[in-house]
Structure formats: C-alpha cells, structure tokens
C-alpha cells in the first residue's frame, strides 16, 4: 500500500520534467521577448542585446534549457524578468498563499453546500425542489466566472454596498465574499450534479432495501448507506476542480482586485516572463499530481474493495 503511493509519487517526477520541457519550449517559441515594453518608449536594440546577454537569452536554446533545468533542480528558478528585484520563489511566496486561501475556502464551500444540495435534489419527492436545484447547478456550470464575479460585484458591491468592489483585506473580511463565491460556483454546481446522480444510482441498490428492512432511521440510511457509496464518484469531481481552483483564477482575481497567483501567472505570460511562466506552471503541475494522489488515497479510504486490490 505504502509502496504503491511511493511509486505514484515517483511517477510524478517525469510528469514534472515533461511539463517543464513543454512549457520551456512553448514559452520561448512564443513571439516577442521579455524586453518588449508596452509603453510608448521601446528599449534601444543595444539595451535589449545587453539584457539578453545578461540573462543568457542569446545562448542557443538547448544551452538555455540545460542551464535552466540545472538551476530548477536546485530549486533556483532565477529572477523574474518583469520585476527583477524578485526571484520566482519570492513571487510564488507572495502571490500563491492568497490564491490558496481563496481557492481553499471556495472548495470547502462547494463541498459543504454541494453534498447536501445534491442529496436533497436526489431524495426530494417534490419535483420542484429537484428542478430548482438543477436549474441553479446548470447556471453555475454554464456561467463564466467573469460574468458571475461582475454580477456579484455590481449587485452586492455597487448596488447594496455590502462588500467592497475592489481589493483584498484577507480571507476573513467582506472583501473575500465575492471572489470566494464566484470561485465556488462552478465546483459547487459540479458537485451537486455529480452527487445527485450518484445518490440516485445508489438509492435503488439492493443494500439500501436491506438497510430499510433493518428499521434504520432515514438519516442513517442516507448518510451511512447512500452517502458513503455515492461519495466515491463525487471525490473525482472535487479533485479535478481543486487543483484548478487552488492556483487561482485570472478573471476573478483581476475583476475583484485580488493580488493572487492566477492573475500574476497570466500577466507573466503576457510579459514573456519566462522564469515566472515556468515556475508557476510547475507549481500547477505539482498541484495536479499531489491532488490526484490525494483523490486516489481517498478512494482507498472510502472503498474497501480498492484496499483489498492493493493488498494483493
């Protein structure tokens, strides 16, 4: 069992290496250079050449690749080209925690609301309840986050004045309400839909009839018998959204004025800030690997049949 997860963890290394390589070459293949300024005063070609030389951008690409990989393996991703006073590590340390807090809160909200609402939609005998929950979850999946964020800011920030329209004062402040909810909406809708479907499948299985024949209370049947089994497919959906939500959303962070990782990543791409692009992409890849591993681990915890397979 432990060896299985060690193997899975080791298998993450080639994944990271492949991500590194792809991002490195795609970033460098993109037209433009870090020194292209968007301002009206472009840099002199001589200045650009000297900057290229300073940052070894005039070396052949494979040399740059090997040099950079060697640095990355030591944990050194170099300075950001956009803000040369900061290293990539500084930038990650500054911007990632904000996105992690926001994304973590959003995923927590999505799970804590998604499971009960999904169960309610599946179990309710009133078609209206199921219908309403399905409409909301369909909207949640189909509405782009920038629309949701804008609507929420206009409604609650501008209109009602309950929340600030822009800026970040920490997770436990009114400034986090709109971004957390905007981020949570898509995973919430997905969790509702997935859990509703799997509850509907589970509730007609034979062992639910057995549970009823035992004279168990309805809540016991729903939580211990239906819920435990229906949770297994829902975990996959939660896992898929978690890595995506945790690293932050460009739209939500830009619109709500959050100094987060998702926004910084997109700005870095636009500025051809190669070290930051590569560093942030690797962080994202790492998240995907670790969260997939956690999803597998939770299968292992939730489903004893998986446990026996690994024990063999």
């Amino acid at each position, binding site marked *: 069992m432990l060896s299985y997860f060690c193997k899975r963890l080791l298998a993450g290394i080639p994944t990271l290496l492949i991500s590194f390589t792809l991002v490195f070459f795609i970033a460098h293949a993109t037209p433009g250079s870090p020194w292209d300024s968007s301002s009206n005063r472009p840099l002199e070609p001589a200045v650009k050449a000297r900057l290229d030389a300073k940052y070894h951008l005039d070396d052949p690409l494979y040399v740059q690749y090997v040099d950079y990989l060697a640095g990355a393996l030591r944990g050194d991703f170099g300075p950001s080209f956009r803000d040369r006073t900061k290293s990539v590590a500084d930038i990650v340390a500054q911007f990632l925690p904000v996105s992690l807090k926001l994304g973590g809160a959003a995923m927590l909200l999505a799970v804590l609301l998604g499971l009960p609402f999904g169960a309610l939609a599946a179990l309710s005998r009133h078609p209206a309840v199921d219908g309403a929950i399905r409409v909301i979850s369909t909207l949640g999946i189909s509405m782009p986050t920038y629309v949701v964020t804008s609507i929420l800011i206009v409604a609650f920030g501008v209109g009602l004045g309950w929340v600030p329209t822009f800026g970040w004062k920490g997770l436990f402040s009114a400034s986090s309400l709109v971004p957390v909810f905007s981020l949570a909406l898509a995973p919430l809708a997905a969790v509702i839909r997935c859990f509703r479907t799997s509850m509907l499948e589970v509730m007609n299985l034979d*062992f639910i009839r057995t549970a009823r024949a035992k004279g168990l209370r309805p809540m016991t049947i729903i939580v211990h018998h239906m819920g435990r089994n229906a949770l297994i497919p829902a975990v996959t959906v939660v896992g898929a959204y978690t890595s995506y939500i945790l690293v932050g959303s460009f739209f939500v962070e830009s619109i709500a004025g959050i100094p987060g990782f998702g926004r910084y990543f997109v700005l870095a791409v636009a500025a051809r800030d190669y070290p930051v692009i590569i560093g942030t992409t690797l962080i994202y890849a790492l998240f995907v690997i670790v969260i997939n591993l956690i999803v597998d681990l939770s299968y292992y915890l939730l489903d004893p049949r998986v446990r026996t397979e690994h024990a063999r």
Partner: protein
Amino acid sequence: MAGEPTMTKIQSQLLDIADLHVEIPTARGMVKAVDSVTLSVRAGEAVGIVGESGSGKSMLALSIMQLVPRPGRIASGRISLAGRDLLQLSEREMRQVRGNEVGMIFQDPSTSLNPVLRVGRQVAETIEAHHPAADSWQQSVDMLRSVSIPDPQRRVRDYPHQYSGGMRQRVMIAIGMANRPKLLIADEPTTALDVTVQAQIMDLLRSMNAETGTAILLISHNIALVSRFCSRVLVMYAGRIVEEGPTAELFHQPKHPYTRALLSALPRIDRKLPQGLTTIGGRPPDLARLPAGCAFFDRCQDRIETCRTERPPAFSVGPGRSARCWLADEGKPSC
C-alpha cells in the same frame, strides 16, 4: 437436521393478511401485483409461497414490511402482526417493526450488503436501531458465530467482498435474526447460490426456526425447496393465491391446474420422462390487463366456459386447504 419447529403447538396467528391489494401505476395501466391475498402464519410456523417470477410473491413480502418500491402502494387490505394492524402504524412505529419484529433476507447476498461497511457494523447497526446496545459489536460477533461464520472474532471486521456468496447469505440471516424477530421473511434466499450452499443455508434457516421459534415465510420459485422446508404452502399466480394447503397434501393431491402443472414440470428421479419435462404453455398474463375470469385461463388444460368470464373464489377443498378454481367447487360438474 432439527425436527419439527418447536412452537407449532401454539395456534395463535402471528401474521394475518386479509384481502391485501398492492397496485403499481404504470404507463400501461394499474398493475395489480398483489390481488386480494389472504394468508396467515402461526407463531413458529414455516410457510412457503411458491410462484413463478412476476407472480407477485416478492411484492407480497415487501408489503408486509411496507417497503413496496414507489410508485407501488398498498391499496387496501389488512396486515396484522401479533394482533396489531401494521397498516395503521405510523412510519416511525413501522420502523420499530422492521428488523426487530420482522426480519427479512433477500435473493442476492452479493448486492444486499453494503460494500463499504464492515460486516460487523452491518449486523450491529440492526441491533442498535432497536435496542440501546453498548455491546452491539460483541452481539454481532455472537450472531456471526450462530450462523457458523468461521473465526467470527476476526471476520467481523471484514468487508462483504471478502466473504463468499454463502457466507454473505449467512450474514444476511444474522442480520435478519439479530433482534430475534417473531417472523423472518426469506425471499428467494438460495436462488443466487450454488446447490451445495443452498442446502447449508436451508439447514441454517431450519435450525434458526427450531431454536428460536421464529416463524419463517419462505418465498421461492423452487417448489422442491419449499416442499422440504415448509409445513404449509401457498401457490401464487398473477398476484393471487390460487391454492393453499398443508405441504404433503397439496403436493400429493393438487387441486388447482396450475399447481398440477408446476408439479409435473418438476424433474423427478423416480419417474421416467419419455417425452422430457413438461412445461406450462403460454405466458403469465399481463398484470395490468387481467382477464375478467380466471387469470390462468389461457394456459389451463382443464378450463371450462365459466372460467373465461367469472373469477373463481377460493373454494375450501379440505381441512386447511383451498383452491381458486371452478373445478374445485364440488357443487359444479367438471368436464
């Protein structure tokens, strides 16, 4: 194995079902899954219900527990257990009957147990649902021992997939018997099991019946199994009880043509079969469009004109025996 059930001397009716109707609304119309069924089971008795699939026997079993799957419902009738009308109980009171006064085991033990809960938990929760039991885990170990699970102390911690099919059905029996119910409903308890295991499970049920005095309502399509196990048999066809009587008499002198056909469809080692096994021609009727007369009319070898138009009542054909057939009416001539 164990001899006669010990409590058959007590003549009080344990389960008394009168004129029960279970209906399922479908697109094709109202399906009468159980159609004016009357039956009774005495305390400690082993009663069998025989019928082919779709005859309504499982619906009858589920209706005793009031677990008829939606949109099916009990339309009318009376189900009383030890003198108490179950249909008058609230859902909360009915929960105290399920698993406590009436246990139930189902056909397929591989799907009837929750795959993600330990076997012991599944037995223990049955006890906890009805008794404040701090030692429910120990009780479930004892229950597993009583159904001959080897090494119960250890295997109580296993999950259902670690058990064989026969062991799973033993667990189902342990669950059904956990609270020493007055009645155990066994719905096709051996159908999903292979033959040697079938015999072990039936032996276990028989000893449970003898040791605890729990009455057993055995539901099966397997007429041979029922004849070996039950003292009284009811034959069900198209939602109705067509014949009823003490096992030996009913099987030696069947009064209803359907019972006769069932018995002649049975392979017998002591009988030569020159033309192979007899089968019953035709198919059971559509329960949504039952004919006006006898439901067996289309397939009956002995039908008379009355059978087409008039539904036969249950005629008494001897002590404790009845048959829903016009030919069983001694007043009428048979043709």
